[in-house]
């Protein structure tokens, strides 16, 4: 392990990679600040640039963009109450009231410190957890991976939110369907509708750009935000003192510690991620706070700001654990990184730990560096970064559309891709307006091909039989967990239906 860490430091600390962390953090902060654009779009926009890079350099850049986007989202949450990222919605609960009370500088500084602490503590946990899980997963076979992928996709749906479980499952299935377009592993063409450009299937970058970057930019046009004046005022206004007193730091230290641990473990769970982590941490701190402090929550509590900020950054690091060790993404953001890694010719999973230790360790080490750079970058630059909020949307949106289209076109030099992106973006807008979650679709699409491949391999290994599903203990255990995950929301639905029926009957009896 020590050798690996040293190897990681050597790779991550090269001038090129350090520059990539810096660029990634800066670009991520900028994109994350734009309301409507999340980390998936931020990373998708970076992928075309990374194709000529070494896989470790590319992943380091993307990881930097990821943290940067989360921090950028916090800035717009605090200053204008418009979270650029879902993971920073909870940040606005107390960050925005603090800014309104004239403590924007303090809130932003606290967000930067909390993000740094959460990111650093979870990076240490990642250093311990990732190699341990990678060694365990070395004994995994194709059938186990197949089961794990089903579990990952089910978990993403299970954590999609109240009332969204079945919708998320449908979107996952849509992603899986899209992954079947083009030739299968045996070379049989499917669902190409006679269009030669579809013989090789859909490109993951095209799908990611169209469903996230393009459609998010178009949604900003469809639902114009009325925050322009507020943004300009926030950008030009004074932020106030950025100092955090020793007593405040002392008071917040346990909050940061608890939220880091919670954030990391929630981040490791497939499907959970930064949004759930930040809400859970906020809820936990509110419950643990003494009565006097509890009353401050929602009105500008420092604890209420530190908890979600720490947890969302910790969850970002946590979400790398399943990606690096099992090759299974736990969120839409890590799914897009998985897609990028596969296109670089790197297969994440336990083999990554053995075959590409440089990538594995340098990414982990770069997380420490990324957190330090984010702190260095954000603290002194906060007043200037805030001015970015005043950039006119009517100029930014067309540029985002252009870079999204170019990102895909430059790789294929085929205008068919531009038209396909426009069609996919229109469908994605309809899906967004209908409140169906899009991230499960992206995960289904990326895991679809791998799932079918692993299933095929498992059948071949087991002499054309599917008995491995119940005969192999690891596969069976994972499938049982999957069934439990699948049943839990359904049982909840049926219970509520029964309770409602009972209430209705009682009400009717009462009327009679």
């Amino acid at each position: 392990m020590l050798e690996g860490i040293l190897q990681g430091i050597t790779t991550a600390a090269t001038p090129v990679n350090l520059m990539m962390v810096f660029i990634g953090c800066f670009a991520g902060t900028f994109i994350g600040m734009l309301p409507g654009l999340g980390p998936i779009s931020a990373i998708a926009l970076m992928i075309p640039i990374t194709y000529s890079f070494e896989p470790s350099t590319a992943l380091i850049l993307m990881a930097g963009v990821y943290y940067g986007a989360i921090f950028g989202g916090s800035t717009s949450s605090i200053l204008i109450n418009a979270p650029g990222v879902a993971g920073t919605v909870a940040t606005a609960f107390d960050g925005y009231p603090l800014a309104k009370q004239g403590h924007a500088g303090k809130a932003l500084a606290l967000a930067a410190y909390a993000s740094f602490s959460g990111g650093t503590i979870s990076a240490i946990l990642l250093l311990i957890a990732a190699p341990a899980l990678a060694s365990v997963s070395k004994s995994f076979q194709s059938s186990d991976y197949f089961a794990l992928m089903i579990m990952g996709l089910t978990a993403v749906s299970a954590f999609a939110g109240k009332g969204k479980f079945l919708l998320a499952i449908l979107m996952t299935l849509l992603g899986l369907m899209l992954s079947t377009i083009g030739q299968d592993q045996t070379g049989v063409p499917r669902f190409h509708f006679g269009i030669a450009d579809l013989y090789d299937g859909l490109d993951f970058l095209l799908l990611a750009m169209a469903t996230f970057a393009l459609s998010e930019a178009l949604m900003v046009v469809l639902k114009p935000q009325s925050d322009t004046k507020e943004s300009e005022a926030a950008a030009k206004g004074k932020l106030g003192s950025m100092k955090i007193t020793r007593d405040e730091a002392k008071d917040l230290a346990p909050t940061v510690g608890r939220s880091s641990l919670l954030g990391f473990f929630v981040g490791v769970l497939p499907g959970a991620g930064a949004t759930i982590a930040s809400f859970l941490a906020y809820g936990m701190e509110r419950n643990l706070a003494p009565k006097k402090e509890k009353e401050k929550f929602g009105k500008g509590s420092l604890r209420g700001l530190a908890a979600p900020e720490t947890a969302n950054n910790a969850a970002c690091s946590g979400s790398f654990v399943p990606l690096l060790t099992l090759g299974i993404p736990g969120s839409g953001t890590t799914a897009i990184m998985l897609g990028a890694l596969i296109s670089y010719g790197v297969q994440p999973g336990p083999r990554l730990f053995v075959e590409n230790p440089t990538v594995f360790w340098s990414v982990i080490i770069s997380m420490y560096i990324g957190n330090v750079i984010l702190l260095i970058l954000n603290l002194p630059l906060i007043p200037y970064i805030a001015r970015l909020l005043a950039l006119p949307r009517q100029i930014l949106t067309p540029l985002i559309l252009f870079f999204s289209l170019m990102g895909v076109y430059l790789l294929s030099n085929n205008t068919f891709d531009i038209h396909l992106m426009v069609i996919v973006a229109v469908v994605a807008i309809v899906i967004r307006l209908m409140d169906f979650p899009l991230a499960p679709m992206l995960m289904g699409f990326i895991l679809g091909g791998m799932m079918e491949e692993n299933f095929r391999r498992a059948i071949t290994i087991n002499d054309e039989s599917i008995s491995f599903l119940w005969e192999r203990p690891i596969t069976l255990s994972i499938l049982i967990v999957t069934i439990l995950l699948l049943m839990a929301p359904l049982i909840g639905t049926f219970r509520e239906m029964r309770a409602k029926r009972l209430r209705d009957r009682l009400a009717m009896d009462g009327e009679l």
Partner: protein
Amino acid sequence: MTISKEKAGALFFLVLAIAYGMAARNIRLPFGFEEELLTARTMPLILAWATGIVSALILILPNKNSSGDFIAAFRGLNWPRAILLIALMALYGLVLDQLGFLLSTAFFLFAAIYALGERRLLLITGISLAASGGTWFLMNEVFDSGLAKGELLYKLGIY
């Protein structure tokens, strides 16, 4: 009568599942592969069945957390501008090979920024030319990727 967003979506998915399932049954398998346990049809057929079942479940089960009416979700939005941008992107894809990267990109950016309400023509021109020229220089001169110069311009003898 109103229909909720979830039910409308589920109905769409049900139709999709039927169409996809039918298309899956028509996948041509190589001779001798029909009897295999896992063929190119297997996963699509499983997906079609699963999608059909889940969408039917959404249609049957009552909506306890409905996020609103299907038609209302599409009302009150700035459709003209969004449709204009979508049309501009489609047009950009159509003229890119003919007019070449530089001209078509500058035109697309100018039109898109103008469509979104910016009226400072000098600023729009500057941004459009800088973005298209900058990308052209970066891709052609630095990365040597050879962006489209424009067939129409070639026919007109401009380059």
